[in-house]
């Protein structure tokens, strides 16, 4: 099963990129979609059943769209929300599950209150969508580095 997780708040402008992309994916066998404001531990049990994981998130510090392979990373000094790499570490510890995971980072520029994406972010949606479809079609073949 491929697990695709869109992270962000659709009421904060470009932070809604991840949810918008994941909600636009059509249902298909072997795909499980989640849209979350934050990564919280209650999502971890789903990692135990996933073959691959793709996080889709807005990025404030990037200029280009990037698909990066993630490695688990120990979280330090957290509350109840985790970054994708720390979340992988948590899932591995809890469920002995370390599915290969990637992060699709989509640059955003306007994170103020509002439901609309900025023109720049909206223009990136088609390419981001193509990258997600390519990831899904790649199946078990490793994608990216």
């Amino acid at each position: 099963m491929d697990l695709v997780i869109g992270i962000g708040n659709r009421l904060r402008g470009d932070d809604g990129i991840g949810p918008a992309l994941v909600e636009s994916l059509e249902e298909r066998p072997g795909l499980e979609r989640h849209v979350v404001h934050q990564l919280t531990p209650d999502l971890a049990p789903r990692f135990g059943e996933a073959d691959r994981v793709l996080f889709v998130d807005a990025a404030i510090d990037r200029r280009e769209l990037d698909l990066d392979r993630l490695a688990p990373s120990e979280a330090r000094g957290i509350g109840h929300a985790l970054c994708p790499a720390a979340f992988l570490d948590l899932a591995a510890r809890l469920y002995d599950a370390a599915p290969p995971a990637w992060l699709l980072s989509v640059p955003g520029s306007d994170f103020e209150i509002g439901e609309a994406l900025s023109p720049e972010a909206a223009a990136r949606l088609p390419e981001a969508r193509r990258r997600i479809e390519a990831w899904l079609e790649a199946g078990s073949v490793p994608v990216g580095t």
Partner: protein
Amino acid sequence: MEKQIHIEPVTRIEGHAKITVFLDDAGDVRDAQFHVTELRGFEKFCEGRTLWEMPGLTARICGICPVSHILASAKACDAILAVRAPETAILLRRLMNLGQMVQSHALSFYYLSAPDFLLGWDADPTIRNVVGLVAENPDLARKGIRLRAYGQEIINRLGGKRIHPAWAVPGGVNQALTAENRQWMLDNLPEALDTIRETIDLLKTSFDCEARGVLGEFESMYMGLVAPGGKWEHYDGLIRIVDQDGSIVVEGHDPSRYFEIIAEASRPWTYLKFPHYQPMGFPEGMYRVGPLGRVNVCESFGTPEADAELEAFRAATSRCSGKVFDYHYTRVLEILASLERIKVLLDDERILSPRVRAEAGINQLEGVGIHEAPRGTLIHHYKVDENGLIETANFIVSTGHNNLGMNRAVAEIAKMYIHKGDVTEGILNRIEGGIRAYDPCLSCSVHAVGQMPIEVSIVDADGRLHQRLTKG
């Protein structure tokens, strides 16, 4: 020369705050203040919006407590429509509130607070979190995560999503429960019950009455809604206030007339107001709400397992516990009671009825909605014009009710652990722990935005900053 200790930001709470500890010339604690440093102003920008928008709008006050605001708002709207929601709608609203109780309490206990007392107050702060708990006790962590997920899934299956479900509406709810979803809730209930039984046993065996004094103990009044016979209540009921001995101070007060007994004070050093029992004035009218408040005001839970545990708790403590740590204990007791009540609701065939909403127009120009949110009594009070546009909105939220109690807890813990100006991180964490025990939601209480870390400052008698420690 007096010094002040500031703790800022306060971590593992829902929102942001800082603490100032005032030391006297000898370096001992003179006083402490819990500052809430952000303002959001939700009451103001609800003005001019339509009544029908209020449940959805006020849900956005918080990502942790949206269900609580939706339900209080819907009840206030019911009052303005002058309708009583159909009985099935009330059963479903109760079910969702119990799901909220389970998920919110589980988040507070397993994710945010258990790392303190299961890993140790003096443990490295970088591992004293849910990931550290996973490393130390993965079985408990796994079960706690699944228990919270159960509460969230109840909300999801009722409202269509786990956060901000647009489900409770003026006059009822907008979607009935399906037989399939009821069966899922029933099928997964035994596991949730087993987890909470195990957790209660862990608390009982690991923390005796003396150990539970670690976060201080003080006398106050307690407030909550109770059902007939003084039974624990979370959705309807009448206001009861008791003193530290459990003696009745206020009994059977109509919740819609809360303003006759509750007043709000303000102080310049915090955006969080100080609700208090008006006849006693401020600050003498301090009362506490939430799990400890509800358990202290009630005579019984009204369900067998929770009542047996309540009896054991009171036998080992007292009729009314004043221990701050017992917020945690009563929180897990409430999870047990909530799960038992979920079973009762799901076994009631009326819960599948499709008749879930009463339609009406504006029939009153004022309405109050009150119920028990996980953190305590939540009040929404609206005044509207003839067209149903909001003229004024007043929210008194659980964390506000506990503001005096949190300030007192901080001061008591500081006095226990800080002497001659000697301060360590472990001690500061106990002060933070005192606040975390109340599980404050500052997003709700000041309607605050963003991430909020903790800062502790120490200031001398002349008002000069002596030391500042920050985390988060």
